[in-house]
């Protein structure tokens, strides 16, 4: 009997669904942290660099150029939405162009709170970096 058939005949007991609720709660708490995650920090630094022209396409291009890795537009927007929820970023709709199929651009701007958080993260990282002989001279 296959796993699918077993699941069909003997469905999960309701207690398993409570375990799922617990898992979702942990995931939710992880995403609601006020600290900046690695990818979020990269995105917010790109926003500062792009200044007034920070919408999806330039953000992805800049991230790919600076990190040398491909990034998915969906992942960038997920990070931007998290940053917006934390109050580090604001957004506004811009103009629509024909090459976008008539859809408006969404521009993002870093808030004062976001800038403060970036500075604090930078200070923490620099303090952690100092005095590590294995990481001197750019060697990882």
């Amino acid at each position, binding site marked *: 009997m296959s796993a*699918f058939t077993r699941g069909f005949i003997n469905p999960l007991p*309701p207690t398993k669904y409570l375990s799922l*609720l617990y898992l*979702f709660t942990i995931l939710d708490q992880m995403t609601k942290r006020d600290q900046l995650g690695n990818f979020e920090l990269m995105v917010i630094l790109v926003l500062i660099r792009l200044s007034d022209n920070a919408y999806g*396409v330039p953000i992805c291009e800049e991230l790919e150029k600076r990190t040398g890795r491909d990034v998915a537009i969906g992942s960038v927007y997920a990070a931007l*939405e998290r940053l917006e929820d934390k109050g580090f970023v604001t957004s506004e709709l811009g103009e629509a162009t024909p090459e976008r199929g008539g859809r408006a651009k969404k521009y993002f701007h870093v808030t004062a709170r976001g800038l403060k958080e970036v500075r604090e993260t930078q200070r923490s990282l620099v303090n952690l970096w100092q005095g590590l002989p294995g990481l001197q001279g750019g060697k990882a």
Partner: protein
Amino acid sequence: MRSTRPPAVAKWLLQQFGCSPSNAAIIGDMDERYRQGRSRGWYWMEALTAIVGAFLKEVSTHKVAAVCALLVGWTVKVAWLYISMVTYILAFRSWLLVLLIVSVVVCALSA
């Protein structure tokens, strides 16, 4: 020569199932990058990533609703199974026939 129009099915899927608040902006950005020279495969991957990512975020945002949906689905599945069995028994009044039908369903599901 590559078409300048993005894959219609991938775009339709993203329009229907993409639940991010920035869905329109995501589609606009994908169209813009596609017209800059990205491949059809790239467009499909981006569309699927956006749908799955937004779905997971939505589930984690509405945990109680997600668990309720699973519970309702589980209840409906069990109820459907037992109602079908009772219907067959009442309709045919033959345990042998019921056994045969159940065997066929189980075999079909295991295949």
